[in-house]
């Protein structure tokens, strides 16, 4: 199907137009091109989806175009639409379009409007290549492309050096993961002889079993790549800093799409992961650890976007957790719902930040619900979904994950307990965020929002994205789960609500109730306590203070990396001797000796005839001795 190409091609075209015109287009045109290209792509995706469903979920393959062919390696550009990639494509173009839409307003007062949309379009293109590519190399192309765009967009405000640092950190840290991915590609090509996803999986199914070590290594390497991209432990440190980018970027890249690429990768390679218990266990543990650590960290953050960032980490942790447990559909479903509600949350927070004139500290906010009603409700809906309040989208997906954890044969109870505790934490920090931002009285300055600002969250054009995402966050769960289940050929997967009703068992009920409990607790705690206590909790030296400080810093990962990797590298690199290349010393020494000998020999040229004669007689003597006795 050739029209498939249009989906990635449109954003690419948008990118090219915006770049080549070098920002000379009027802003309205830029907005139309930037958001429009993604919008049309979304429409086409809808058409493709319709075709897909109309043909009994038959895989759709685009026309192909040879990329390169060397020896036994032949790689083409070809798009591949099956259930998995279709859902992802839908999310990317759909949510992407909404965020672009929102951004047309959000960015309206910034410099580099055109540049921003160029990058965003490029990002959508790259992300689509990642998702739709039929070979791992094409996937890698997208994978790197989104990394680049992420770098460009985090550092969008390039005048601020810290942002540039954050951008580089993001790029380099994910690059570490990418390297593992790349090595996995080499290994796959070596062992399987192809980089085509489907052929590779087929090969694995046919030739490998649980005991194949190579498979485990491949999976672990892929996990390494996924961990980097999805900001999981231990490569998670870049994500909070990545919040330096404009908020729509955070919404699109660092919440809805790019960071879930790791999840997508693992889901894509399901056939291989299923064969390796060790890899699956690692996926679970990585997810669980991130989930935990990120949740605790989110609880003590003061920057609203950092709360959301840690929340994103923990939610992706859920996804990994689910994938690792074999609850493929639950994990992937959570990806989709998370895209909806986290995008919503970010957009809402973006409006808040603009309203506060780029103040992101929640302790300086408060009472904003009166000024910003739309973001307030959006935030409420998003938070509800995040906290998995029953019947919201998040509830369906998270519940499925929790139940999946319970069903795990070996450590089920343990996993479930962990996940449930994290769920409580999720509720807690969500409530805390809303309480600090919207409830109570203003603690800092507030500003009037001029009615004709393009980003004014009360205008229709800005409300629309909130509305659509809000609807999806609430109702997305109702329709989606059955669909996603088919992706992974799971028939017996647990289904939250029905399950609860049918069984009314202890565990499902508890699973059902505990998020609620968290919310109630949160409301009690944050609603009633004095504002100062939060601040105190962070600064004083009591045990809780130290703990919260520790949590605040993201469990000290940054500190450890700084101390043991970055610092030594930079220090050694910056010392003078190294700038001057120690290898050069070899040649400097040679030069030194050459000139030393030169000076010694020159000193013999004294100019005295008698000395000259002496050397000649000496020479004769030496030669004679050599000839006669040696």
């Amino acid at each position, binding site marked *: 199907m050739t029209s498939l190409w249009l989906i990635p091609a449109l954003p690419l075209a948008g990118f090219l137009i915006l770049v080549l015109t070098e920002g000379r287009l009027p802003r309205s045109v830029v907005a139309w091109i930037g958001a429009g290209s993604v919008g049309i792509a979304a429409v086409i995706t809808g058409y493709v989806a319709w075709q897909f469903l109309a043909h009994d979920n038959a895989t759709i393959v685009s026309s192909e175009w040879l990329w390169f062919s060397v020896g036994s390696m032949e790689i083409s550009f070809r798009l591949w639409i099956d259930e998995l990639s279709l859902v992802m494509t839908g999310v990317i173009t759909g949510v992407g379009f909404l965020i672009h839409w929102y951004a047309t307003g959000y960015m309206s007062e910034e410099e580099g409007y055109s540049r921003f949309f160029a990058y965003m379009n490029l990002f959508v293109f790259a992300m689509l290549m990642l998702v739709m590519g039929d070979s791992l190399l094409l996937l890698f192309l997208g994978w790197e492309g989104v990394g680049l765009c992420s770098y460009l967009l985090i*550092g969008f405000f390039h005048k601020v050096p810290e942002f540039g640092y954050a951008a580089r950190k993001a790029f380099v840290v994910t690059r570490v993961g*990418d390297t593992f991915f790349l090595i996995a590609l080499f290994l796959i090509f070596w062992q399987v002889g192809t980089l085509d996803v489907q052929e590779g999986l087929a090969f694995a199914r046919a030739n490998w079993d649980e005991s194949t070590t190579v498979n485990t290594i491949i999976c672990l390497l892929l996990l390494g790549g996924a961990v980097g991209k999805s900001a999981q432990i231990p490569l998670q440190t870049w994500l909070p800093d990545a919040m330096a980018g404009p908020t729509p970027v955070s919404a699109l890249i660092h919440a809805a799409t790019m960071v879930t690429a790791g999840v997508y990768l693992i889901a894509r390679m399901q056939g291989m992961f299923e064969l390796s218990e060790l890899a699956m266990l690692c996926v679970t543990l990585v997810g669980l650890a991130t989930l935990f650590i990120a949740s605790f960290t989110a609880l003590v953050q003061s920057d609203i976007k950092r709360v959301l960032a840690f929340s994103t980490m923990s939610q992706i942790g859920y996804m990994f957790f689910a994938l690792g447990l074999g609850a493929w559909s639950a994990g992937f479903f959570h990806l989709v719902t998370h895209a909806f509600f986290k995008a919503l949350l970010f957009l809402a927070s973006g409006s808040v930040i603009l309203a506060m004139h780029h103040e992101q500290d929640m302790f300086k906010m408060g009472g904003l619900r009166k000024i910003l009603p739309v973001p307030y409700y959006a935030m409420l809906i998003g938070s509800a979904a995040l906290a998995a309040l029953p019947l919201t989208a998040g509830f369906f997906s998270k519940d499925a994950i929790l139940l999946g954890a319970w069903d795990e044969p070996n450590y089920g109870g343990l996993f479930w307990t962990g996940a449930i505790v994290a769920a409580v934490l999720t509720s807690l920090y969500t409530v805390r965020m809303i309480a600090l931002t919207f409830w109570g009285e203003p603690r800092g300055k507030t500003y009037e929002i001029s009615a004709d600002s393009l980003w004014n969250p009360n205008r229709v054009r800005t409300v629309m994205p909130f509305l659509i995402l809000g609807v999806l966050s609430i109702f997305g769960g109702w329709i989606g789960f059955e669909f996603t289940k088919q992706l992974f050929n799971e028939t017996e997967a647990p289904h939250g609500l029905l399950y609860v009703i049918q069984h009314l068992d202890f565990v499902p009920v508890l699973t059902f109730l505990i998020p609620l409990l968290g919310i109630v607790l949160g409301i009690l705690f944050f609603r009633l306590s004095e504002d100062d206590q939060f601040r105190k909790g962070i600064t004083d030296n009591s045990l809780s203070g130290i703990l919260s400080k520790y949590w605040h810093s993201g469990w000290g990962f940054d500190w450890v990396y700084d101390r043991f990797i970055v610092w030594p590298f930079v220090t050694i690199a*910056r010392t003078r001797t190294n700038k001057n290349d120690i290898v050069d010393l070899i040649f400097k020494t040679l030069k030194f000796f050459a000139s030393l000998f030169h000076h010694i020999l020159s000193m013999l040229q004294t100019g005295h005839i008698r000395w000259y004669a002496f050397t000649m007689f000496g020479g004769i003597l030496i030669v004679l001795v050599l000839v006669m006795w040696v």
Partner: protein
Amino acid sequence: MLAAGGVAWISERIHVNLPRWLSLLTFIGVTAWVGAVWLGGPDQSGLYANQFIEWIPRFGINLIFQIDGLSLLLIGLTAILGVAAVVSSWTETKQRTGFFQFNVLWVMAGVVGVFSSFDLLLFFFFWEVMLIPMYFLIAIWGHEDKEYAAMKFFLFTQISGLLMLVAIIALVWVNYEATNTLTFSYEALLGLELEGSIARLLMLGFFIAFVTKLPSVPVHTWLPDAHTQAPTAGSVILAGILLKTGAYGIIRFVITLFPEASQDFWFWGMLLGVISILYGGYLAYSQTDFKRLVAYSSIAHMGFVLVGVYSFTTLGMQGAIVTVIAHGFSTAALFMMAGALQERLHSREMSDMGGLWQKAPRMGAVTMFFVVASVGMPGLGNFIGEFLVLVGAFNKSIVLTVLATFGVVVAAVYGLSLMQRSFQGELNPRVSEMQDFGVREMSLMAVLMIALIWIGVHPQTVLALSDGFVQILEVIP
């Protein structure tokens, strides 16, 4: 049209000491010629052009010019970068432009000769010939420390070249003793059976010369100095083309003339490559001078060539060739950028830069593009090369390949730090006025960008050309 026709044609022009336009036209002419030859397709034996003239019959030394796919590819690169070098130094050199262009043309003629010579002595002849004008370029139009840099460049390349000369003559003499014919013809010497230890020594003679030119650790130290001091056109030629002669030499001569010895040598070849990648990348990060940084990054990239070639796989070999071409474009562009910055700011130190994006967004965007390319972004030429190299090398040695792969991370570190320190951040207060790129510079950069993207998305153009040669290699081992 014949290859020698092309070369002679260049040399004819060379003697006319006319300034820029002439040399620009010459390069465009050569580019067009290469294009025409390419479109014309090869003859039955896979050659695009072939020329034989007697030179010194006494020693069986003849002017044998042949252009096969690999040669054509590199000559094409030479011609395009020739245009780039001339255009990029359009305003930089104000003194003695005639002599300047004369030298540029001579270097190029030498390089074209290197790429098309199929007689070993002729090859050596051109190998050395291109160094002299290059020396002039550095020594006359270089920057503050030019004497040291030019001298270092000349000494390194000449001394290693002498070793090669010894190896060439020795090889010919061995052949003479075996067959009683005195010939320097590449093809005649190709099938020569050599005794193990002799082959190893002779191979080393060639290898050292090429590796010095490439350059690889530990004989790389001339490069940063030469690059830093050379004028823009010099740097472009040096990085874009001269380094490639080293790669070409290894691929064309070392591997084919001494197949067994090279096979035995694979570990050391790859190890040197990996060390170059990591050490070069590491040093690149340590630099504060824009050009030095790019120079060290060249060392790292050329490390990939070594890794690829010594993996002895089709993938690795092809990857090395693609890397050679792509690196030619990307690094040349970065050096032009450095030259443009120096022309505007009179400094190469990155501490004198910072925040330049605000003053010159086009330069920023262009730099970003090439930095990203050299970092190895898929979709651009360098990635294809590095990927193929690594895939190919993986079969040979997993450990070394994994180490080399981490070079990619290092590349990101120094590449982005270059970007950050020069173009991003707050505007350096010392920068007052700065002109952005004009039409001349932008169109030049556009050509290079298109070339890189083309190689990135359709490397088959390159791969198909070099395929014939790599096929031959397959047969040899």
